[in-house]
C-alpha cells in the first residue's frame, strides 16, 4: 500500500514532533506560605506551576499543626517559628488544596471551609 506510506510518514513525524516539543526543560519554582492564625495572605493563596516543574514550597507557621497537600498526599508537621518545605515534582495536572490542621482545633470539623491555599498545575 505505497499510496499510504507517504502520508503515514508525515503523520508519524508530526506526532513525534508534537511529543518532543513538550519535552522542554522543566522549571524549578519556589513559593512561600506564611501561615498566621490558620490563614495566609491573599497574595500567597494561589500557586501556579506547570506540569513537570520541580516545586518547592517553604512554609512557616505561627502555631503548631499539620499542613496537608491533597492529591499529591504530602504532609508537613509544623513547629511554630520553624520553617519547613514541600519539595516535589508536579507530575499531575489539576487543582489541589492545601489544608491546615492547627493543633488547637485538632478534631474540630476537618476539611471544612475554604482551603488555606491552592496549587494549580497547568498542562504545558
Amino acid at each position: 500500500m505505497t499510496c499510504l506510506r507517504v502520508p503515514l510518514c508525515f503523520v508519524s513525524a508530526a506526532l513525534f514532533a508534537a511529543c518532543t516539543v513538550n519535552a522542554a526543560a522543566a522549571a524549578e519554582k519556589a513559593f512561600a506560605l506564611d501561615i498566621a492564625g490558620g490563614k495566609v495572605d491573599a497574595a500567597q493563596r494561589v500557586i501556579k506551576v506547570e506540569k513537570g516543574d520541580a516545586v518547592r514550597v517553604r512554609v512557616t507557621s505561627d502555631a503548631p499543626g499539620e499542613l496537608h497537600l491533597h492529591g499529591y498526599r504530602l504532609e508537613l508537621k509544623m513547629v511554630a517559628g520553624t520553617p519547613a518545605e514541600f519539595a516535589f515534582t508536579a507530575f499531575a495536572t489539576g487543582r489541589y488544596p492545601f489544608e491546615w490542621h492547627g493543633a488547637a482545633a485538632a478534631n474540630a470539623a476537618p476539611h471544612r471551609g475554604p482551603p488555606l491555599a491552592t496549587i494549580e498545575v497547568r498542562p504545558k
Partner: protein
Amino acid sequence: MIKKNHTISPHPHPLPAHAGRGSLIQLLAHAALGMPVLAFAHAFDERYDLPAPLEYFETGAAAVVILSFVIAQLVIEHTPATAPRVRRIETGALLPVLRLVTRALGLLLFIVMVVAGLKGTTDPLMNLAPTLFWILFWMGLPFAVACIGNIWPALDPWRTTYDIFDALARRAGFERGLTFGWRYPTALGAWPAVALLLAFSWFEVAYAQAAVPYRLACVALTWSAFTLAGMIAFGADAWQRNADVFALYFATLGLFSPLTADPDLRGIGVRAPGRGLIARPAPAAAHVCFVIAMLSTVLFDGLLSGQFWLLAQNALARALPWLADADGYRMGAAGLAGVWLAFLGAYALTCAITRLVIPGYGFGRIARLFAYTLVPIAIAYNIAHNCANFLVQGQQALALASDPLGLKWDLFGTANFRPDIGLVDARVTWYVAVGAIVAGHVIAVWLAHRLALREFGTRRRAALATVPLTLLMVLYTVISLSVIAEPMVTFNGPDATISR
C-alpha cells in the same frame, strides 16, 4: 456555604508502592529534611479538576451556535422525513444467559456494598461502599447505559430480590405472586420519581454524610424496604414505571443508546444513537419534569463548586434569612429546587412560544413531544463533569476489590494499589469535556429537527417550530460549558480558593 463535613479519621497509610513519578525524590527530600513520609486520606468527594480556560469556553460556545444553524439548515432542507430505522440481530440464547449472570452479579454487588457499609471501616476512601455506589454506579453506569444499552433492569438488585420471592410465592400457591394487586393511582403518575430524583440529588450534593459508609448502607436499606413495599403493593412493573427513580432514570438514558433488547430476549435492535428519544413523546407531564430534573441536577452539582453559587447563596441568605442553616441543607434544597424550576420555566416558555407557531398543537402536547430531545445535553454534561473524576477516583476500586471492608485484607493482590492522579492530563480532560458538550448539543438539535420534520409535515412549519427550542438548547449548553470553564468558577477574581 454548603460544605461537605466529612468525619474523616485521618489515619496515616504506609507510603504506597505506586505513588506516581517523583515519589523517590519526595522520599529522599523528606528523609533529608527529617520529615515524616506519611500519606493521609483526603475527603471522598474531592475533585482536582482544573476549570477549562476561557478560550475553550469561547470556542465551544461559538461552535454550539454555528453548528445549530448549520444542522438546522441541513436537516430541514435535505433530509427525507422517514421513520427511524432499526436493524435487528438474532442472538439466540446469549441474552437470557447474560441476563441471569448480570442479575446474580447485581445482587451480589449490592449485598457486598451494604455489608461493607455496615461492617467495614468508617474511612470513606478505604471502604468499598462509597466508591462502588457514587463512582462506579452513579458516575459510571449512566455513561455505560447511554453508550451501550439499558442494562439496569438486569443489574437492579431490588427487582432481582422481588422476582426471587415472587417466584417462590407462586410456587407456594399464590396465583398473583408476591403482590397485593392494588392499582397504582393514575393521578400520582410518575411524580414520585420526580420528587425522588430531586431528593436523591440533594442527598448526593448537599447532605454532608452521603459518603459515610454506614450512612450510605442505612439509606440503601431504607430505600430497599421502600421500593420492595411498593412493588409488593402495586406489582413490580407498575411501581418501577412510575415511582422507582433508578428504573426511570436508566430507562430514559436507555432511549438514547444504540442497542435495545427484544422483549423475548432473542435478539438485539440496533439504531442510531438518540433515535429512541424521538420514537415516542413523553407519556405525561411528570416525565417532562423528570427530564428537566435530570438536566438541572447534574448542572447543580457543577454550579455548587463555582463562585456563582457563593453569590447566589449570599443573596438568598439576605432575602430569606431562615434559609441559612449551619449545614447548608436548607440552602442546598432551595438551590436545587430553584435551578430545577428555572429550567422548567425556560422550557415551558419555549413550548408556549412554539405553540404560537403550530396551530392545532396544545402546550402540553408540544412539551411532551420534545422533552426527550434534551437528554443528550444531560448525558454530555454528565460526561464532561465526571469523566476525569471517574478515571482518577475510580482507580481506587481496584484496591478496594481486594480489601472491600478496609480491614487490611488482600483478596486479589491489589490492596496496595493507589490511584495515579496524573493518569489524565488536564488538556485531555478539557478536550473531552468541551467535545462531549458540543457533540451532545449537536445531537439534541439534530433530533429536535428530525422530530419536527416528521411531526409537522411541511418544512416551513418545522423550521419555524424549532427556532425557540434550538435557542433554549443553546442556552442550556452554554450554561453547562460555563460551569466547567473558568467564567463561572473564577469570574469574581483570582482569589478563587473554593473547595467542596
